[in-house]
């Protein structure tokens, strides 16, 4: 292993590495993110390796396991270069054909291409696919390019150049760049990163710490996981630059226990960095001493809150404490501590490398740069998307997400994780940035984005999020702990037909108390799911409380199933599928549902080809 002595030495090594790889004529990248691995991409990788060997193509073709490409639902993904041809849902049986046709004779295999929803259009290259075409992949770009276990790959693609530059610029000028870039914290709060660094840097204490918050607890969010799994060195580089500016000697990465692959790759990357002199004592012979430790969290949602996270690293219960003092002044073991989220750290190298003016030109006036969202729910294309700040929700859902599944109507988009808010269809044209989302009753959060269609009951959604929050509250404050228990009970009452106008009033009052009197931001925002659905979907609440109806047909106590005699053709399919034997009917005769026996499982409605089963 090369031990890098200084920035020039790094550049020499980079040139050397670039020469080495240009000898490969072609390269095949296989996504080895958690999503694709679950779909069997390791088998694809093995099969490709065997096939390349079989055809003696080792010298010509390079096989590269990479990080998450973002288009997780189409995995396993295989990308061929040059040409950037993307194959989706590749199975081991396809490998021989890929090698013989696409690699050996530049033929494109049509059936493996991504197609438009109607199947009419086929998109051969990555940049043709609407999912990718509308994105601006600043942070995720390298995920599909480099092998996360290879420091050489990262260096080839410009890795640690920003750190070299930072050393030449000096701490003050780097800080100035970060401030002028307008970068705001990607973990949810949106606090200006440069300002945070400045506060921490100007403290009198000499011992300072850095923390990378990788305790991504939002259900359905996997931005940070994918960055750590796909490109761990960019986080290390960001932290190195942070250490230089802030004057910290030790950094911690707090990763949740549920991310074993991220931990494994990060640890691997840290070892490489240490061996190469990128971490440790006197880095790049500049006198900078810095090392990073990995700390694994136990998977408590509340440990994503910075003061709770710090308590957890110190070995105490993960409970937030009152701020001020902020961690930048008094954090880990009472020392000044700068804590940033994974995505924020990953934004640092590009800013230093390409300058704050370039970075500030992306996004909106108050929110600069790009943001990664995990787009999930009832959209056609789910996955990780990175877009410039200020893009409209509509663009994200329709242009990138490809619209709603099964041609249903969109009802709401939920942003900001469990304590975010639900925005209705008429708010789709708002620009997605920190301040607009808050103004509209939602929030940026760490970047979860859940799309809901017309079959979603908003009262049930609010209840679902509250169930999560009440069990993930740390339990310190009466208002958050007991308030959420009671609020959840009140929402359950509504979904089970026991709600009335008084219930709605109690919910409003209680939500106001929880928001006003809880200690930490998680407690104060925990009522957002209720307040935002009350604000935008009040009529749905009224339907539940006044007419005892669930318009979306979700709340079991308020719905009943029936078969339309005009549409039923007596095929007995529903009779066969009913688990509680609630449907009666002979062949070619109209069937009926016994509502006494019906358990409202929806099985009959799912199987009926005539659409004769209706919910009311």
């Amino acid at each position, binding site marked *: 292993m090369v031990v890098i002595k200084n920035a020039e030495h790094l550049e020499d090594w980079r040139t050397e590495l670039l020469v080495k790889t240009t000898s490969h004529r072609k390269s095949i990248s296989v996504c080895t993110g958690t999503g694709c691995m679950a779909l069997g991409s390791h088998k694809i990788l093995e099969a490709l390796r065997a096939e390349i060997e079989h055809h003696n193509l080792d010298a010509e073709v390079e096989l590269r396991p990479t990080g998450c490409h973002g288009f997780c639902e189409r995995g396993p993904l295989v990308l061929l270069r040059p040409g950037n041809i993307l194959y989706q849902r590749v199975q081991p049986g396809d490998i021989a054909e890929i090698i013989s046709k696409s690699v050996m004779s530049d033929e494109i295999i049509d059936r493996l291409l991504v197609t438009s929803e109607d199947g009419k259009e086929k998109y051969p290259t990555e940049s043709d696919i609407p999912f990718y075409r509308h994105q601006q992949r600043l942070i995720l770009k390298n995920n599909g390019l480099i092998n996360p276990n290879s420091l050489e790959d990262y260096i080839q693609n410009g890795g640690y150049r920003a750190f070299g530059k930072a050393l030449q610029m000096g701490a003050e000028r780097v800080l100035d760049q970060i401030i002028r870039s307008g970068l705001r914290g990607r973990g949810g709060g949106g606090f200006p990163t440069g300002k945070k660094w400045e506060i921490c840097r100007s403290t009198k204490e000499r011992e300072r710490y850095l923390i990378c918050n990788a305790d991504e607890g939002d259900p359905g969010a996997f931005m940070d996981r994918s960055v750590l799994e796909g490109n761990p060195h960019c986080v290390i580089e960001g932290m190195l630059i942070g250490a230089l500016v802030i004057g910290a000697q030790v950094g911690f990465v707090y990763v949740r226990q549920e991310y074993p692959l991220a931990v494994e790759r990060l640890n691997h990357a840290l070892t490489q960095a240490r061996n190469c002199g990128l971490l440790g004592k006197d880095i790049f012979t500049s006198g900078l001493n810095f090392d990073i430790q990995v700390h694994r969290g136990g998977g408590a949602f509340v440990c994503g809150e910075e003061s709770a996270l710090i308590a957890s690293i110190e070995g105490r219960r993960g*409970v937030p404490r009152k701020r001020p003092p902020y961690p930048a002044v008094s954090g880990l073991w009472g020392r000044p501590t700068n804590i940033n989220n994974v995505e924020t750290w990953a934004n640092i190298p590009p800013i230093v490398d390409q300058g704050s003016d370039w970075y500030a030109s992306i996004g909106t006036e108050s929110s600069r740069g790009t943001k990664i969202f995990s787009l999930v729910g009832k959209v056609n294309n789910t996955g990780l998307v990175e877009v410039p700040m200020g893009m409209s929700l509509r663009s994200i859902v329709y242009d990138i997400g490809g619209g709603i599944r099964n041609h249903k109507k969109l009802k709401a988009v939920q942003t900001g994780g469990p304590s975010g808010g639900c925005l209705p269809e008429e708010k789709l044209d708002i620009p997605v940035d920190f301040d607009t989302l808050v103004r509209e009753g939602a929030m940026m959060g760490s970047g979860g984005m859940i799309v809901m269609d017309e079959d979603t009951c908003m009262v049930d959604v609010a209840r679902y999020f509250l169930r999560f929050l009440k069990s993930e509250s740390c339990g*310190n404050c009466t208002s958050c702990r007991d308030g959420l228990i009671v609020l959840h009970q009140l929402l359950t009452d509504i979904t089970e037909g026991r709600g009335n106008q008084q219930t709605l009033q109690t919910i409003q009052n209680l939500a106001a*108390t929880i928001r006003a*009197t*809880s200690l930490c931001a998680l407690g104060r925002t925990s009522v957002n799911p209720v307040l935002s659905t009350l604000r935008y979907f009040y009529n749905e609440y009224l339907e539940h409380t006044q007419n005892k109806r669930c318009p979306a047909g979700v709340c079991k106590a308020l719905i009943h199933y029936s078969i339309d005699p005009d549409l039923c053709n007596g095929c007995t399919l529903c009779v066969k599928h009913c688990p509680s034997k609630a449907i009666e009917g002979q062949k070619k005769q109209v069937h009926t549902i016994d509502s006494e026996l019906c358990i409202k499982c929806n099985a009959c409605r799912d199987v009926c080809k005539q659409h004769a089963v209706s919910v009311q």
Partner: protein
Amino acid sequence: MEMTIQIKINQMTIAVSEGQFVLEVARNAGFDIPSLCHHDAVEPIGACRICLVEQKIGHESVLTTACNLVVQEGMEIFTDSAEIRAHRAANLELLLARAPGSKKLRELASKYGINEPRHPPIQDNYPKDCILCELCVRVCSNLGHKALAVLGRGDRKRIGLPFNQPSETCVGCGSCRSVCPTDCIFMRDTPETRTIWGKTHRFVTCKQCSAPIMTYEHRAFAVANNGLGEDYYDVCESCKQVAASRRFASVVW
């Protein structure tokens, strides 16, 4: 004590020392702020959310708890307003759902107009009527026993013995029970024994009057930590006082 900072509470200027908490300062100045999870002997954690006050920051005012709010130069605090009372009442109502049997809590709630709580009782609360203020845990930890712990989180948060195992470090001192605002910790004393947290301790009794002094475990802990010697605890405090006054009398007369 050096008074270095000036703050305003209900528009009254008060000189205070650095590091003091607003609750302490306000109470010393005669303002009544109710609280349940506060005790002067331990660090505040802001659990009960009853000691709410309004802090004026610029043109806005924010609600915050007084117990863990450190004084700062120029700080402006209001301890009573319609909003404060409404939120205190709402939190008291929540606590009543958890501890409907606590007399002290019911009295405080009735001061805020809550006589019949609207919320149904929170089920499976154990110890019964515990409001999870953690005073017992904090006191036990400060005394050096660390027998009690907070278990679980969110709606499964409980106070109890770590891993629900019989405690090796509980000495039966009863401090937890003495600080509990809702008297929810079970303790039963007989002339010879004390039962608390599922364990029965034997009392060291006074060599003169046979009154219970402390548990054997408590004495062993005290002797090991204060160096006074076991014989210091042979006689109970009241017998010591009687002996002292007799000695005093014999000198004077």
